[in-house]
């Protein structure tokens, strides 16, 4: 049981390049989230999805797009990377079982992105 898997683990981009980060979960979770983690800033929510085919903006959505075409996958895209997007990106998922508000987040191990 892999849980939440993020690919790639590391990536270096030049300013203006594009890339897609992939998050896959095998727990049949409805809810999926993309966070970025920067030193001293904790985790900030970029986008999230409450189910297949749905996405919504989080706290820091600018410069990112997402898609949830399949329930198990949540893709985060950077169309034109900027140095300010240098960060560690975490994907997380959460179940919608009975006590939905109590269900914990399950995290991947992150993608470390550097934009030069």
């Amino acid at each position, binding site marked *: 049981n892999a849980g939440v898997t993020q690919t790639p683990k590391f990536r270096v981009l030049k300013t203006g390049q594009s890339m897609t980060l992939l998050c896959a979960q095998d727990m049949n979770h409805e809810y999926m989230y993309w966070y970025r983690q920067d030193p001293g800033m*904790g985790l900030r929510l970029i986008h999230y999805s409450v189910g297949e085919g749905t996405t919504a903006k989080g706290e820091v959505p600018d410069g990112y797009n997402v898609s949830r075409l399949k329930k198990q996958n949540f893709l985060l895209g950077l169309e034109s990377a900027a140095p300010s997007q240098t960060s560690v990106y975490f994907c997380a998922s959460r179940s919608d079982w009975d006590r939905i508000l109590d269900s914990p987040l399950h995290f991947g191990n992150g993608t470390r992105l550097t934009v030069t």
Partner: protein
Amino acid sequence: SQQGEEDPQALSIQEGENATMNCSYKTSINNLQWYRQNSGRGLVHLILIRSNEREKHSGRLRVTLDTSKKSSSLLITASRAADTASYFCATLHASGGSYIPTFGRGTSLIVHP
């Protein structure tokens, strides 16, 4: 904006000592969760306390919640070097019909052997 804020930002102790870290939050909550993050890894759920609970235990972890002060504390007793990690509190923030998990900036704990 962060819903929860941890205090202190950093904590350095000797093995065997207790470690206490605090979390303050801004709005009413359904529950508060604590997570741990080892260096270079994702966050791992530790413990959840509901708004109608005041204290909860799990192994060497003890969590308290004071809804009147909008604060929670995480106590790790008899700490070990392996407890070295960052610890985050998280609450659910209502937004657009959903509940969004929102994290504080974390407490970095170093336990010296």
